[in-house]
């Protein structure tokens, strides 16, 4: 009977460790890795991912590919992403800080290479009931992504024909900005 108690304890512990390893540890490990790779870049700043960092977090993609990243932080208000993309194939993916996909768009879907995307905290249940009808600003402020997580990152992907083309694509993409949204009256 006493041994049964310890067998059950071991089984419960195994389940807890298993769930932690699958659900929680990967997100924290990933966030720590991302912080290490971009430790000198402040939040809400757009930057082109250096080739060495790119091969570590996007190893499936060729080295000529360009990745632009904005690590957003919504604690002090919404963040606006003003994208300026080269003509051709590109994608944008917005992730939560634990790597969960929140939003995606491609050049085919958007039809434009310049656009604004506002990232804002999703309203709580109380906020939803207290919202006024005219507070839906989607139509006036471009596209809007609501995140339950106050931190995360947006990733632009632009493929290049070769490594030489990477530089010119990086130059165009680097004109993209990411910063605190202007207050609306």
């Amino acid at each position, binding site marked *: 009977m006493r041994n049964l108690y310890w067998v059950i304890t071991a089984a419960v*512990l195994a389940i807890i*460790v*298993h769930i932690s390893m699958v659900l929680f*540890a990967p997100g924290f490990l990933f966030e720590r890795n991302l912080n290490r790779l971009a430790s000198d870049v402040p939040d809400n700043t757009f930057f082109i991912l250096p080739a060495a960092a790119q091969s570590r977090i996007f190893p499936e*993609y060729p080295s000529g590919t360009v990745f632009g990243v904005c690590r957003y932080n919504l604690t002090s208000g919404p963040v606006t992403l003003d994208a300026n993309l080269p003509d051709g*194939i590109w994608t944008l993916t917005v992730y939560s800080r634990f790597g969960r996909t929140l939003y995606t768009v491609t050049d085919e879907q958007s039809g434009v290479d310049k656009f604004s995307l506002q990232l804002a905290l999703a309203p709580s249940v109380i906020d939803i009931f207290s919202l006024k009808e005219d507070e839906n600003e989607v139509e006036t402020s471009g596209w809007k992504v609501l995140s339950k997580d106050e931190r995360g990152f947006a990733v632009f992907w632009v493929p290049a024909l070769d490594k030489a083309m990477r530089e010119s694509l990086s130059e165009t993409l680097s004109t993209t900005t990411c910063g605190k949204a202007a207050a609306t009256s």
Partner: protein
Amino acid sequence: MARVSVKIFSVLCGVVGGWASALSLIDSVGSKPAGAAGNWRMWDLASGTASNPYARAHFLIEGRVPPAQSLFQVYTNPLDDEGSTLRSGCVYRIAANDLESRWWSLSVGPSNSQDRDSSAAVTSDQVVRGTDNSLNVAVARSPVAGNWIRPETEGTLTLQLVVSNTDELEAAEDVKLPSVQRVSC
């Protein structure tokens, strides 16, 4: 003394069991066989409530960003068509006839960011096709005429195929994936 040993053993069993089962299931449950032939596996990276936590953990635990499934489908293959492990010392021929996609990339992992001379990927932008639209790529340490991928590391290899998704394309399970044949060792 014996009781203390049972306690320690139970705790160890729980922790090690949970950890080992998580690592094992992250690879097996996170992916599923893809294509009618060969040993390709696809990663189930749907977003939202359809998200497979094991597939996400596979990417995040290594500090990698999981591609959004609405944009890209990721296939991996550590074996040739005979079921043998892919090795850097061997020469392989990867052949496909109907790999149609707006953009795709075939690469060999693991990557090595220090090895800047390697060309460990071939993309749809660069690949040279046969007159019948067939596709042949060689994976070898030494140069091979035609489409050639040079592994960046010694030891066992994994093929990685990233295919961009569009609404018109066939389902990810129905994509005709390349065959992988060992030429020599």
